């Protein structure tokens, strides 16, 4: 139906709606007065004797008329809608119909019912059938197979855990989470360097189990990962451990229910779990980064299923995103080439100096105690540890500077062969003081539950900075 509805009156009704039944006797009067089209959303004998009654079995007419309630009364003139009311409102119906005595014996007003077009699952189906949205991805018919989840496994689309089958309706619903055009190209996805559209992002988000409102965070994380500084191509292909880890800052974290508290680095929160997983599925499915193929990781790490959490922001400590140039009150993601989690247990330090030394010694283990300026690291400070610094007036910046000082080491101790260990740094550092991390290579985030004098180290890829990967922060829009 591409031609506009005929001039005159249109009524959209549902037989099982009591208000529609209430106005049914009036329809004959309306039909006598001029052209009347009645669209009935459910199969019935509603207004059957009227010549203009039509069973809207596909709901196309109701959908094109943007019907939200039944009954809806519309007047069309010269192909355009000029007035509309819904439910039974005596004054409105009289005004629109031009019949001053209409429904004299009826009450002044009765609310209607919801239109069938808005029932769960129906709206997206109608939009797919009759709307402007065009999904371009290839349709795979799995009707011959027992189970859609098994079909996804069989096609190699899964990370090993079950995925939600990406049906067109689910994908359309996911696309409602962003205002961006489904065909907009987010970037070239390594390692195969193919265009990744918003639609492909949405398909993989469906499979990962995302809700539509996670889309802005996922898109920002993907864009951050695709920035040249992040070096995603190499990170996917490396024999080492790392993979994109996402840290979320700002109001969006609470808005979508992310976890920054108890078990923040663990399982159990849908947003944390599925945003990180969706990014991994995009790498796998769109980019072609599959383990044992282009992904050459010798061991990998569990974060390659998913690794995403929010910072437990504290007014006394500058959040990571703000340290990295994002304005206060804005939301942002930071991607980091994270390995696994190494705990720091210190239940005895009560002074910031002691705790900082404790953390610095633990940070030496990143990559290898004898390596320096190789991998970056994220230090995740739990609230109980952070409190020790905050109560002593230490800012995050001061903690970082202190750690950097404490982590300076005499080169001779780290040289190749020193201490009876062949691994180490080159001989030219022999007489130098060597920092553990390259400038900007130590990030500090506050997260975790409020009980536990523990913090955590998440080591980065040993190829950091311009030779490999640097963390990238991007605002969520």
């Amino acid at each position, binding site marked *: 139906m591409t031609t506009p509805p005929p001039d005159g009156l249109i009524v959209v009704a549902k037989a099982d709606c009591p208000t529609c039944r209430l106005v049914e006797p009036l329809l004959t009067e309306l039909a006598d007065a001029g052209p009347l089209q009645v669209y009935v959303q459910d199969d019935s004998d509603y207004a059957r004797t009227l010549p203009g009654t039509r069973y809207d079995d596909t709901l196309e007419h109701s959908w094109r008329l943007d019907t939200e309630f039944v009954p809806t009364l519309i007047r069309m003139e010269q192909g355009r809608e000029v007035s509309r009311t819904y439910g039974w409102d005596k004054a409105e119906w009289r005004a629109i119909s031009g019949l001053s005595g209409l429904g004299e014996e009826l009450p002044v007003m009765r609310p209607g019912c919801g239109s069938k077009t808005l029932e769960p*699952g129906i709206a997206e189906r109608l939009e797919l059938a009759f709307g402007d949205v065009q*999904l371009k*991805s*290839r*349709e*795979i*018919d*799995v*009707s011959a197979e027992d189970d*859609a989840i098994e*079909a*996804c496994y*069989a*096609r190699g*689309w899964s990370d090993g855990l079950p995925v939600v*089958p*990406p*049906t*067109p*309706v*689910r*994908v359309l619903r996911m696309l409602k989470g962003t205002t961006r055009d489904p065909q907009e190209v987010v970037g070239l*996805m390594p390692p*195969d360097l*193919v265009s990744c559209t918003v*639609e*492909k992002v949405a*398909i*993989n988000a469906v*499979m990962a189990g995302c809700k539509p409102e996670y889309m802005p965070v996922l898109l920002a994380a993907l864009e951050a990962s695709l920035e040249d500084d992040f070096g995603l191509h190499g990170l996917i292909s490396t024999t080492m451990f790392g993979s994109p880890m996402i840290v979320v800052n700002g109001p969006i974290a609470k808005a979508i229910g992310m976890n920054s508290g108890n078990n923040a680095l663990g399982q159990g929160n849908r947003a944390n779990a599925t945003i990180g997983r969706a990014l991994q*599925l995009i790498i796998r*499915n*769109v*980019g*072609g980064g599959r383990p044992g193929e282009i992904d050459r990781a010798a061991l990998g790490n569990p974060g390659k299923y998913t690794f995403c959490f929010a910072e437990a922001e504290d007014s006394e400590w500058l959040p990571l995103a703000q340290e990295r140039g994002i304005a206060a009150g804005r939301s942002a993601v930071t991607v980091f080439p994270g390995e696994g989690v190494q705990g720091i247990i210190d239940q005895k330090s009560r002074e910031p100096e002691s705790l900082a030394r404790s953390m610095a010694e633990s940070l030496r283990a990143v990559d290898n105690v004898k390596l320096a300026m190789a991998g970056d690291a994220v230090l995740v400070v739990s609230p109980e540890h952070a409190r020790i610094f905050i109560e002593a007036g230490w800012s995050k910046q001061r903690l970082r500077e202190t750690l950097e000082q404490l982590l300076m080491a005499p080169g001779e101790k780290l040289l190749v062969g020193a201490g009876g260990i062949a691994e180490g740094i080159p001989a030219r550092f022999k007489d130098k003081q060597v920092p553990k991390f390259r400038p900007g290579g130590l990030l500090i985030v506050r997260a975790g539950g409020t009980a536990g004098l523990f913090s955590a180290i998440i080591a980065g890829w040993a190829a950091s900075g311009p030779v490999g990967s640097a963390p990238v922060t991007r605002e969520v829009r």
Partner: protein
Amino acid sequence: MNDTILLDPTAENAPAQRARLARPDSLEGKVVGLLDISKPRGNVFLDRIEEQLAALGITVNRYSKPTFTRPAPTALKQQIAAEVDVLVEGLAD
């Protein structure tokens, strides 16, 4: 929800129809399994194939399903997959 149509999450560089594994160019050096599905006289057919393969110097392993009425038990499938490169199965009597 109708789950029979899925949207392809990949870059669509591979055919939608999944390809079968390529046939080997030669059986030389390969281990061939012969699976009897336990239908009558299937063994006659497989015995003859075994004779011919053995004459070519090819290693043959014999297997049989407990009954043709059900899929092969998982343990048997895993055993076959671990032990042979190629499998021949006689489907009917």
